[in-house]
């Protein structure tokens, strides 16, 4: 039987500084009509380049397709003329790119950008094309499409722009829609909405979707079949259930063991994949995963790179070893542990009862100015009357969608902003209004670990002086020798070789840079560390390394963490208690177990429902009830309960009172009048 799209032995090379990078190295796969195929891999695995090669969207030079065939409906796309290829692009194969913020032309209206595609491929007149474009915008859930068709991209939120991109990609009813990390830059609820929409499109129109992603949860929830890519090659392929229930390739197994899940047992130790993906320059004919493989044997190093071989039906893997036994063992063990998780102890660590940080009625308002004289007309209540505490040695998770005020809270606590009012009591002292000179010595007790391992390290300083900077600023070491010793000690503490002190940041990988950032945060011996999305910029296989490091350090040094993240699975894994925020206010706070197993606030419930679990069997049993709409701008905060226009439970009275944060049971508070009623308050 012939497939809709069949790629055979595709090879794409890039020439960078005279070196050949084999970005796609002999990849074969197929896509049938009406199926969702996932291509999974980390950054640099070649998963996007593979997709772009087929429709020749890679920049040439430096890129070059050196071999293979891409058969679409029987035609080899690589041999088509420019004109024929253009008809396929946009007409029969549509692409949705990762970055909705940059993928639309900023100086043209979205209507223009959609209509030009329609006119090009469907050959209809402008008026009909406009009508069709409005229909499309409606179908992807853009409200007031008739009016908004004449808006420019910057007038939409990220989620809305991605919807526009989808409308554009499917404007001419393509047979295949390639979604390249299309939801990665979006919030978890928006991500779920968009993926559900794509799923509906498949159902209605028999369009096939190629889902390019690193997120195994998404794959488990939506894909029919999976191709796992590593270092420019496919290492395993099969149906979603086959891959998740009996992964055969060590890389796939390691990935599944490295990621935290929403249904994990609490004490589960993540098993990171050590090392980093290989460089694709001057690739040798040997198993690319070898240096990181837990199942490697001495023999592997002498064999040429393994080829994909069937391990039963349509399930293929490229590995010299038959590691069936262990694989099943580990995955099964994990699942068994989940079932037993109800018997787990409440707190997994003994905690002090003393508060290290207490935030009381914190408000951070920004003035809205208008006109030439910058007259203040209103306040943006970015953080509005927020109170919480963190006990010594505890990890408090802080979650919420972008725009909920997480970042503002951190910045107010760290005094990067001057809080409008309220108290921030750190170790018994109120630092909210403390003069900067008095605050300076206290700064050494509080550190921040940043999200971006690239921009958070001064590119012109050596790793050693970056880590040593706090020692100099706070004059913590007396002699040169003492300074060097301390820096060495810090390097070792975070698992870096002290011999690398003289290197500059760009000579390190992302994970290593994050370690440098953590070493710097530890240098002044702080008791409190704020982690601002500290692992979200890292690849999945590296994330586990850093999570484990943070947990180890907490045990060793008795640190207290405020862990801010949007990834609810990670927050669940690492936190003792969790705070959920929405539009500048706390909507729910509880210990991790109550919050994740018995969420009370409809927003928390919606958030959790939106997180996909990397397990197709679990996903089958879950209700996919999606939160509707998007978080409104803080400027247009609704009256009463801020969540009112997205809440499935909302009634008229919700718009009348702002719900207070009420403790429903010990340590579990929620701000919802409906929940309050249920428990009889």
């Amino acid at each position, binding site marked *: 039987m012939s497939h809709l799209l069949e790629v055979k032995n595709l090879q794409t090379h890039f020439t960078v500084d005279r070196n050949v990078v084999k970005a796609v190295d002999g990849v074969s796969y197929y896509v049938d009509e009406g199926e969702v195929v996932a291509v999974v891999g980390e950054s640099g695995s070649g998963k996007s380049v593979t997709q772009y090669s087929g*429709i020749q969207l890679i920049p040439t030079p430096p890129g070059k397709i050196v071999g293979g065939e891409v058969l679409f409906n029987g035609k080899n796309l690589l041999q088509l003329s420019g004109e024929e290829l*253009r*008809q396929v692009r946009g007409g029969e194969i549509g692409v949705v*790119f990762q970055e909705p913020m*940059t993928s639309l032309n900023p*100086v043209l209206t979205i209507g223009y950008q959609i209509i030009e595609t329609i006119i090009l491929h469907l050959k209809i007149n402008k008026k009909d094309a406009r009508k069709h474009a409005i229909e499309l915008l409606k179908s992807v859930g853009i409200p007031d499409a008739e009016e908004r068709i004449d808006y420019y991209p*910057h007038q939409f939120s990220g989620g809305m722009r991605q919807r526009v991109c989808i409308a554009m990609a499917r404007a001419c009813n393509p047979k295949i829609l390639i979604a390249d990390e299309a939801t990665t830059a979006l919030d978890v609820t928006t991500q779920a909405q968009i993926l559900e929409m794509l799923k509906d499109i498949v159902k209605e129109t028999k369009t096939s979707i190629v889902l390019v992603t690193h997120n195994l949860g998404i794959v488990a929830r939506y894909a029919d079949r999976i191709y796992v890519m590593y270092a420019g090659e496919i290492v395993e392929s099969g149906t979603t259930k086959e891959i998740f229930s009996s992964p055969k390739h060590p890389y796939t197994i390691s990935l599944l063991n490295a990621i935290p899940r929403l249904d994990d047992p609490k004490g589960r130790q993540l098993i990171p994949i050590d090392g980093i993906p290989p460089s694709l320059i001057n690739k040798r004919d040997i198993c690319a995963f070898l240096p990181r493989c837990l199942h490697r044997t001495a023999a592997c190093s002498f064999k040429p790179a393994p080829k994909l071989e069937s391990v039963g039906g349509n399930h293929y893997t490229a590995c010299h070893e038959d590691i069936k036994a262990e694989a099943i063992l580990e995955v099964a063990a994990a699942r068994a542990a989940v079932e037993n998780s109800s018997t787990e102890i409440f707190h997994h660590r003994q905690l002090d009862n003393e508060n290290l940080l207490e935030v009381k009625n914190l408000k951070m308002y920004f003035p809205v100015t208008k006109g030439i004289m910058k007259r203040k007309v209103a306040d943006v209540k970015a953080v509005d009357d927020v109170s919480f505490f963190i006990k010594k040695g505890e990890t408090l998770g802080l979650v919420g969608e972008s725009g909920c005020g997480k970042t503002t809270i951190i910045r107010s606590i760290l005094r990067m902003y001057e809080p409008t009012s309220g108290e921030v009591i750190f170790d018994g002292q109120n630092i909210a209004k403390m003069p900067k000179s008095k605050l300076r010595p206290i700064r050494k007790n509080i550190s921040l670990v940043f999200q971006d391992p690239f921009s958070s390290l001064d590119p012109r300083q050596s790793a050693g002086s970056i880590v040593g900077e706090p020692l100099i600023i706070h004059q913590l070491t007396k002699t040169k020798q003492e300074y060097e010793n301390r820096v060495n000690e810090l390097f070792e503490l975070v698992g870096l070789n002290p011999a690398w002190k003289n290197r500059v940041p760009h000579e390190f990988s992302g994970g290593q840079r994050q370690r440098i950032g953590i070493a710097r945060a530890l240098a002044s011996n702080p008791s409190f560390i704020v982690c601002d999305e500290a692992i979200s910029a890292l690849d999945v296989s590296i994330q586990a390394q850093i999570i484990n490091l943070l947990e180890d350090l907490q045990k060793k040094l008795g640190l207290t963490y405020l862990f801010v993240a949007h990834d609810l699975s990670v927050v669940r894994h690492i936190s003792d208690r969790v705070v959920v925020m929405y539009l500048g206010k706390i909507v729910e706070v509880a210990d991790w177990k109550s919050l994740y197993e018995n969420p009370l606030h409809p927003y928390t419930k919606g958030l959790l429902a939106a997180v996909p679990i990397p397990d197709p069997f679990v996903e089958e049993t879950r209700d996919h009830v999606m939160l509707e709409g998007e978080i409104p701008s803080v400027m247009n905060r609704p009256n009463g309960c801020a969540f009112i226009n997205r809440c499935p439970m909302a009634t008229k009275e919700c718009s009348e009172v702002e719900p207070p944060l009420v403790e429903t049971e010990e340590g579990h508070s929620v701000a919802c009048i409906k929940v309050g009623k249920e428990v009889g308050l």
Partner: protein
Amino acid sequence: MIAFIIRRLLQTVIVLFMVSLIVFSILQVLPGDPARTLLGPEASPEQVEQIREELGLNRSLPVQYFTWVGNAIKGDLGKSIAFREDVTGIIGEHLPKTIYISILSMVLAIIIGVPAGIIAAIKRGGKIDSLISVIANFGMAVPAFWLAVLCIYLFSLKLGWFPVQGYTSPFEDFWLSTQQVIMPVICLAFAALASFARQTRSAMLEVIMQDFTRTARSKGLKEGTIIIKHTLKNAIIPVITLVGLQVRNIVGSTIFIEQVFNIPGMGRLVVQSIFNQDFVVVQGCVLVIAIIVALTNLLIDISYGYADPRIRIK
């Protein structure tokens, strides 16, 4: 958008205030006593003192400054010592000539430079690109006055195509005027033309690398459509800002070109007045030039805001 325009307007006012301060302070350090220069060496100290009194030179600096600014706003820039006339009148006579050749040069620079940059970007790495790059490189390095000398030698003295120098108003004798103005305009425009070509080329290449160009390709648009509808509209925005810089350079270069081609415009007036020690005229000229440059920049900023919907529509 209106708030944006008003804010830029206010900034321009502040800038002009600072320009007036700079221009005024320069006059203060200029050598020689204006009163003495006016009267000549034979005048008696009493006469000098009387003129000083009349000119207000005995008053305190702030008073002098505000008097000068106040008069300038009313259109009175003082009296020329060499011409024995109102400076405003003299400038009014010289300014139109400079504006005429400057506008022609700017238009020429844009209509040749921008398309050249676009072609170079499209044919990146090809022969045409190299040729345009070489011309642009020389364009930015050739002194305008030397180019003028070369032109006069070749086109006037050797080929006899154009008159060596002189200026006639286009309203008086259009044909002669055009013949006379061709070489000065080309010489003035050359460096600006080179800048436009370079800036347009790099702006185009920058935009071609953006994600949205890839999106446009993924929709199956033709390369030509992508360049005209998608790339150009974005690339033109940084080029607009360059116009402001080039206004300044073209007006500056008139100082040489008017000298070489003997055109009685502002540039030659400045140089002449310096040699005449006629600093009231210099002061007036610099102020007027600065106002023109500042106002064009204001206009350019507004059109910049208009070209970019991210500024136009909040």
